[in-house]
């Protein structure tokens, strides 16, 4: 059976696309799938450092697409997690070094070898976005509960629809305490505004920064709430579509709890 090609995109930068790609990829691999993640952010690569593989890059996605190396030579094996592989972006090539045709051909080859091909899309809606999206069967749009990110997500969702892809939404960096106070859009608000199906809700978590510092995946950290949430996204993509989407809960202090009860009355 041929593998699925899924693009992770957002429009706006800095909302957690790369973190999401690395962790969904790791989750799918832990579940026993053969997974390759591709960094398509030519010139500004980061997926390699998030995964702790920055010292092992020889060839890149541009080399593989342009035939400067065999595809196998550009694929880096993650030694910490079995079945997880990375094709890094090039740091020196021009942003327009790739074409949709080249990326489609690469993905057609990869899907014969892997169960999942995850594409980490660059921010923006220019050439890099077009290259990343053209090869994908499915799409996950990442946004945070902020006005700027939701507006850009809406734009990207529209562009995906026009390409015949029905995307799913991952809401990242939810702060449950702020949602409870009414100072952050709830996931229901976001879903209502964007009218799109959810694939996961991920809370704000200090562990994200710590794991990125160390170059290790969150999903293997038992005490990480974000890691748990990303793992559930991976499970849902992996066919457990009835796995409930958990709404992040905060750690309310004793006094906050009393205040909350009083306000309800």
């Amino acid at each position, binding site marked *: 059976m041929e593998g699925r090609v899924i693009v992770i995109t957002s429009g706006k930068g800095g909302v957690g696309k790369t973190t999401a790609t690395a962790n969904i990829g790791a989750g799918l691999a832990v579940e026993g799938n053969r997974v390759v993640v591709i960094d398509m952010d030519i010139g500004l690569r980061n997926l390699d450092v998030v995964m702790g593989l920055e010292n092992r890059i020889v060839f890149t996605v541009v080399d593989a697409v342009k035939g400067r190396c065999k595809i196998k030579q550009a694929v880096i094996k993650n030694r910490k997690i079995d079945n997880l592989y990375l094709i890094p972006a090039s740091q020196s090539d021009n942003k327009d070094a790739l074409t949709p045709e080249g990326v489609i051909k690469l993905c057609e080859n990869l899907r014969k070898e892997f169960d999942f091909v995850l594409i980490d899309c660059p921010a923006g809606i220019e050439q890099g976005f077009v290259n990343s999206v053209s090869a994908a069967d499915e799409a996950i749009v990442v946004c945070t509960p902020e006005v700027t990110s*939701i507006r850009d997500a809406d*734009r990207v969702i529209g562009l995906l629809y026009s390409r015949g892809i029905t995307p799913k939404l991952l809401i990242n960096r939810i702060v449950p305490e702020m949602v409870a106070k*009414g100072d*952050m859009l709830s996931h229901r608000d976001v879903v209502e505004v964007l009218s799109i199906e959810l694939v996961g809700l991920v809370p704000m978590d200090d562990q994200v920064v710590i794991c990125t510092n160390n170059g290790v995946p969150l999903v293997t950290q038992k005490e990480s709430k974000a890691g748990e949430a990303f793992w559930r996204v991976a499970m849902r993509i992996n066919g457990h579509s009835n796995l409930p989407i958990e709404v992040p809960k905060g750690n309310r202090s004793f006094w906050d709890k009393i205040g909350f009860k009083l306000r309800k009355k």
Partner: protein
Amino acid sequence: MFNFFKKLSKNGQSKDTAKKRLQITLLYDKLEVSKDILDDLNRDIVEVISRYFEIDKNALTLDFRKANDERMSALVVNTPILGSKQKSRLA
């Protein structure tokens, strides 16, 4: 304790403002209409309906909503009708 009372009295929630602003912004982005165009549209609709019915011009509301088909927008015009103009047209 002061903080607690401040929380109690706080009615305006910033997320409601965010949601309203977003809904309007996304609509304008998508349809590429501005406030001026909507005002013109409002004026024209009032004019057309007034030819057939007696209406309260200030009570007419124009609203964009999500249609049943997810990615489509629907224009909803709401106006109380005060009376028919049939008689005056016949006269």
